[in-house]
């Protein structure tokens, strides 16, 4: 009897080991499958999370680039005013407009205020350059020419920086509002879309010149 028990035990154990062996094979497959899926999701998560973060930072950087140009322009304005003053002393209104717009821009607290003031400064500068057509002596001055080229250059740089900013905003907003990006965006807490840098009402107006 003992023998038979042990035989049975042996038999059982062998049959169990066989079963275990069969299980491990299936399990192995299963584990590989699960690991693969898990890795896939981890890769997906990393890809989308990083993409959102990179796009977010690009928007910030693009904004900083606009800011740099705005700052440069604000720095040039006093030079321009100094140069222009001597030649067109009685165009006080136009000159005051530029100075005031500049001060408002430097004081501006948030982005919205800033954008508005920068639109005003653009218009005021355009007016100055339009008026300067009437002052050949001023237009001939080397200093004025250089300033005008610098300000023109900054103007187009602002336009380009703005284009890049808006492109980056569009890319970021698309990334956080499309599926599956929006799920990952919720995970990161970056669900609010960034704001586009539009044209201000001030800039849409035609330049006023009185002769």
């Amino acid at each position, binding site marked *: 009897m003992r023998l038979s028990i042990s035989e049975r035990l042996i038999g059982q154990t062998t049959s169990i080991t066989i079963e275990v062996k069969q299980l491990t094979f299936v399990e192995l497959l299963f584990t590989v499958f699960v690991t693969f899926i898990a890795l896939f999701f981890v890769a997906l998560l990393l890809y989308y999370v990083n993409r959102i973060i990179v796009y977010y930072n*690009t928007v910030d*950087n*693009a904004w900083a*680039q606009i800011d740099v*140009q705005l700052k440069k322009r604000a720095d040039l304005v006093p030079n321009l005013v100094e140069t222009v003053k001597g030649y067109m002393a009685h165009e006080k209104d136009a000159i005051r407009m530029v100075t005031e717009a500049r001060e408002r821009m430097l004081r501006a607290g948030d982005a919205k205020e800033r954008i508005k003031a920068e639109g005003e400064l653009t218009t005021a500068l355009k007016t100055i350059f339009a008026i300067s057509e009437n002052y050949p002596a001023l237009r001939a001055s080397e200093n004025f020419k*250089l300033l005008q*080229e*610098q300000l*023109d*250059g*900054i103007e*187009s*740089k602002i*336009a*380009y*920086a703005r*284009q*890049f900013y808006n492109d*980056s905003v569009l890319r970021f907003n698309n990334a956080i509002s499309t599926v599956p990006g929006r799920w990952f965006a919720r995970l990161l807490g970056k669900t609010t879309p960034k704001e586009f840098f539009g044209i201000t009402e001030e800039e849409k107006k035609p330049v006023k010149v009185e002769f």
Partner: protein
Amino acid sequence: MERVSFYDQISKNKRKSVLLVTLIFLFLVSLIYIIAVIFAPELTLIFLLLATTLIIVNIYFSYSYGDQIVLKATNARPADEREHIYLINTVEGLSLAAGTPKPKVYVIDSDEMNAFATGNSPDKASIAVTTGLLKNLNRSELEGVIGHEMSHIKNYDIRYMTLVASFVGLVAIISFLLLRSYRVTRFSKSGREGGRGFPLLLIVGFVLAVFAPIAVRLVQAAISRRREFLADASSVELTRYPEGLASALEKIKNMNKGNMGVSEAVSHLFFTDPVKSPLDELYATHPPIEERIRILRSM
């Protein structure tokens, strides 16, 4: 037409640069091996070791200083803060549009209208423009041209193209030396030992030396045509104004004489082919200007 995203293009350029360096390395080593076997079979190993070291040093320099070599070869000088402020501003504006760091700006004194970009990454890039281009183009045309160069920078075209430039120069020099030394030895040895040596190797060496520059140039041509079309398209993406680039190309077509004195080794870097030659049909490094204008005007 197939769609190529910038990221595909960037990784393709990086991959191609690695491939190019590897191929050139293997090519030069085998070339030197052949030379060594022909002229000094007993010293082959030492010869090979020495040469390999030299080639590695050369590749390192081509990679790190390729842009400097190209700028020197084309007589480019740094743009002046005051005199070329217009150009500097335009370049800065377009680098803002592309979202890349501002490249260094150079000027080449030439009446021909042309431009090129070089460097090995957007952080270490340079743009050079001829004085003829500055004189004859208006702002939107200049922006179109600079936008074109900016996309070469952004796509890492410059890394690959600068490497090609420094290697084409190198291969040309080596094959020239090889051909000359082959001739010299043939004459000096014919009297005493006659047919001593390895005719087969000699033939292979000769063929390699003759065809290497042609092969490199053909590869260079095949790759840069597509690049130019892509760069035109990305330039428009930056400036949003296809007509600017189109009219710049038109001016260049009508006014350029194709007599810029630059080496063939750097011609593929330029905005339009700087040197016109009868062989252009066979391996022009640039697509025909008419075709570029037609595509731009249909955008």
